[in-house]
Every structure is written in structure tokens, then in C-alpha cells.
């Protein structure tokens, strides 16, 4: 990025904003990596005050419901069961503890980089039941899909997946439908869009008359996307534009989608802070029910939450900024996090704590 082009973009955005009716313009990003990039580059401070960048439910770890974490902790404590999870999950609080603390007390948890490692664990220890924690948005779901297919082909009898996979567009839809939050446009996620394609946002843009622009991760790319969004607002357009065309195509990765559809079906699923959203989750298909940990172990994931004063729900919805939470930077810090938005490296509270506290 060049400082010069960022400066020019900011000025152009400011001019466009001035020409708009005098009210706040709220643009929401729904990608944790964007949240971090925006805070790290200090973009909020470079833009006119009337333009508000609001963080939405873009951190898959943050939106994973408490009861899901509780289910993993309970499983990891059962004799003969091992939970394999991405490292992002181990410090996320359930109702009363985390996987990390449960590990310290002897629960069997393995941190893996890929579902392939979880499959290896299962092959190496046939007497142990290995449960893979399937979390993440569309970027991550294809990996789980391949893992499920391999387990089915190999007839692995001791491998299951507890799916908390989520789809971003139903969450964006639910936020707009709830109507309690004014959002003028969306900065759409880069790597989710590699899979779903830029065209996937078209129905949402049309139905709610909200511009959607797919953005890359450099400060300049984000500013360019914001400029396109503001230009659309000025023209009264609500279209999908792709400002990350060097990586994202209109159609996405069809092969990855086909694998997701072979192994999963859309399901109503609970999100932390948003409740249960219709069709927003990926449940393992009936043909692969024997690989579904929820069925094998009789688990139910609900929207029930005990928040201990943590206001992550509101942070995830973009209803409050992290510093508005009374615990922020007092009892809740990255070293001693109370809620998932402070645990996760892509959580809004942690990004805010690390980069924007002085603002």
C-alpha cells in the first residue's frame, strides 16, 4: 500500500460523504480479518466521523454458541473420547470453563491445524473416539466436507464431526431483517467470497437495497471498497461490486461448493448473540449420520447463554462498540478474557484492545 493512495482515497471518501444527507453512514464488515486490518491500520481515525465502520458477526469463533463449547468440553471428559480442534477454540469460554482449562484437568483435547490431522489421530488410535470440532464459515467448511468424505470412504468407525459451521449471508440477512440496526452497506469478506463468489451477495443487495462490496485485506484495498460503497450510496445504487477481483471470482469455487452440498445441508443454527438463524448452519447430511457427533453422542446445541456480564452478543451484532462494555480493559483483557470477542485474535474486543484503545 502506498500512503499517498490511501490519503487520496480518504479524501475522496470524505468528499462523497459530505455530499450525502447529513446523517451517520454505517458500513458493516462481516469478516474478522477485516476487523483486525481496520483497527491495525487505524482506518476509523482516517475517515470522516460521520462514516461509521461497524463490526458484524465475522469472527467464527466469537459466534460459536456457548452450548457448543460446553458440548466439546463434556465430550473431552468422557472416557475414550478425544476432541480435535483448531487452536482458535481452546480458550473460548463455555458456561463455566474452557477447553484449555479442561485439558489441564485431564480432558483429552488435541489442537490440530487441519482436519487431516484429526483423521490421522483416529487412524492411529482405533480404540479412541475422535471428535473433530467443525467450526468456521464457508472458507473452512470445504475442508470438513473432504474430511467427512474420507472418513466415509475409509469406513473410519471412530471419527465424527460436531458441526458448528456457519453461512455468512443468512446472518447478514437476519441482521437486516431484525431492523434494530441501521446498516447502509456491507464490506463483504475476502476469503469467504473465494468460495461463495461475489455473485452470492446479489439477492441480499437487491432485496434490502444495500450495496455490497467484496474487499481485500490491505488498508488500501479496504479503503477502495469503502469508496465504492459510498459512491453507490451517493448514486442511490445497491449493487454487488468486487474490489478483490484478483482473488475472488463471480462464481466462487464451484468444486468446493459441490463438496459442501454433498456432505452438508442447511440447518437452523444458534449464533452467540444473534439467537437461532434459519438456514444459517451446515448440518451433516442424513446419509453421513454415522459421522455426526451430535447424533452419535446425543448432544444438543442450543442458543442458551450465560453471559457473566459479557456483552459480546451486542458487540457481535454491531449494536455496541467494545469500550461500551463495562468489563472492557478492566476485568476483560486478552490475557484474561471474559468473552469470546476478547479471546479470539479476530474478535472485535481484542482488535480494539490491541490497536485502538487510545482512540
Amino acid at each position, binding site marked *: 500500500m502506498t500512503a499517498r493512495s490511501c490519503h487520496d482515497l480518504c479524501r475522496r471518501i470524505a468528499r462523497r460523504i459530505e455530499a450525502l444527507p447529513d446523517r451517520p453512514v454505517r458500513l458493516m464488515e462481516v469478516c474478522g480479518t477485516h476487523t483486525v486490518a481496520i483497527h491495525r491500520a487505524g482506518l476509523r481515525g482516517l475517515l470522516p466521523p460521520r462514516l461509521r465502520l461497524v463490526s458484524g458477526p465475522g469472527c467464527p469463533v466469537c459466534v460459536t454458541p456457548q452450548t457448543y463449547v460446553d458440548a466439546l468440553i463434556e465430550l473431552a471428559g468422557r472416557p475414550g473420547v478425544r476432541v480435535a480442534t483448531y487452536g482458535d477454540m481452546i480458550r473460548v469460554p463455555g458456561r463455566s470453563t474452557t477447553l484449555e482449562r479442561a485439558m489441564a484437568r485431564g480432558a483429552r483435547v488435541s489442537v490440530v491445524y487441519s482436519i487431516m490431522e484429526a483423521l490421522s489421530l483416529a487412524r492411529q488410535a482405533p480404540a479412541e473416539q475422535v471428535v473433530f470440532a467443525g467450526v468456521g464459515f464457508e472458507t*473452512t467448511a470445504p475442508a470438513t466436507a473432504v474430511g467427512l468424505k474420507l472418513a466415509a470412504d475409509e469406513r473410519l468407525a471412530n471419527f465424527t464431526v460436531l458441526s458448528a459451521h456457519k453461512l455468512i449471508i443468512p446472518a447478514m440477512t437476519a441482521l437486516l431483517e431484525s431492523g434494530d440496526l441501521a446498516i447502509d452497506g456491507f464490506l463483504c469478506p475476502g476469503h469467504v467470497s473465494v468460495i461463495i463468489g461475489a455473485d452470492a451477495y446479489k439477492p441480499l443487495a437487491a432485496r434490502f437495497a444495500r450495496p455490497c462490496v467484496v474487499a481485500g485485506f490491505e488498508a488500501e484495498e479496504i479503503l477502495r471498497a469503502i469508496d465504492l460503497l459510498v459512491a453507490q450510496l451517493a448514486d442511490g445504487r445497491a449493487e454487488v461490486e468486487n474490489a478483490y477481483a484478483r482473488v475472488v471470482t463471480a462464481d466462487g469455487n464451484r468444486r468446493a461448493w459441490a463438496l459442501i452440498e454433498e456432505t452438508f445441508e442447511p440447518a437452523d443454527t444458534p449464533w452467540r448473540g444473534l439467537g437461532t438463524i434459519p438456514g444459517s448452519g451446515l448440518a451433516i447430511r442424513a446419509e453421513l449420520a454415522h459421522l455426526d457427533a451430535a447424533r452419535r453422542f446425543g448432544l444438543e446445541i442450543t442458543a442458551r447463554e450465560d453471559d457473566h456480564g459479557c456483552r459480546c452478543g451486542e458487540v457481535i451484532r454491531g449494536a455496541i462498540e467494545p469500550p461500551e462494555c463495562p468489563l472492557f480493559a478492566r476485568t476483560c483483557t486478552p490475557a484474561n478474557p471474559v468473552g469470546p470477542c476478547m479471546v479470539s485474535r479476530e474478535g472485535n474486543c481484542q482488535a480494539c484492545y490491541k490497536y485502538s484503545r487510545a482512540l
Partner: protein
Amino acid sequence: MCLAVPGKLIERDGHSGTVDVRGNRVQARLDVVPDVRLGDYVLVHAGFAISVLSDDEAAEALDLLDDPDEAMPHDGPLMP
């Protein structure tokens, strides 16, 4: 968590390959990029190549990685 990193496919063995991510060799499945060829740049996420990049895209993406803060935007080990 949706972070994907670019690297060059340097070995291929059926559905898996070895990707050079700035000098680190990582194993990656190639299931969703079936047409990838040796020497292509790919985006890797959670042990899977999720897309094939053009050389220009790769150059820009790797440029990004030159900034250590960008390459490892998080504390601790590289997670998906």
C-alpha cells in the same frame, strides 16, 4: 480464522501436495483445486488449497507477507 496464506505448489502426490509458504513447507490437500499444476501459487487455509492464484496475484499477496505483521497477524502459532 478465515485467513488464507499464499504459497507455491512444489510437490504433488495425488490429492495432496507440498506448498512453499515463504520458505516453510506445508502439506496441503488439493481436493478443491483439481486443476492446479506444479509451480502454481495457491491460497492455503486449514491445510487445504482453496484457490489458484495468477502470478500477479501471488506476487502481490507475497508482498503482503513481507510485512511480518501481516504474515502473522495474530499472536502464537498460525491457525486457520
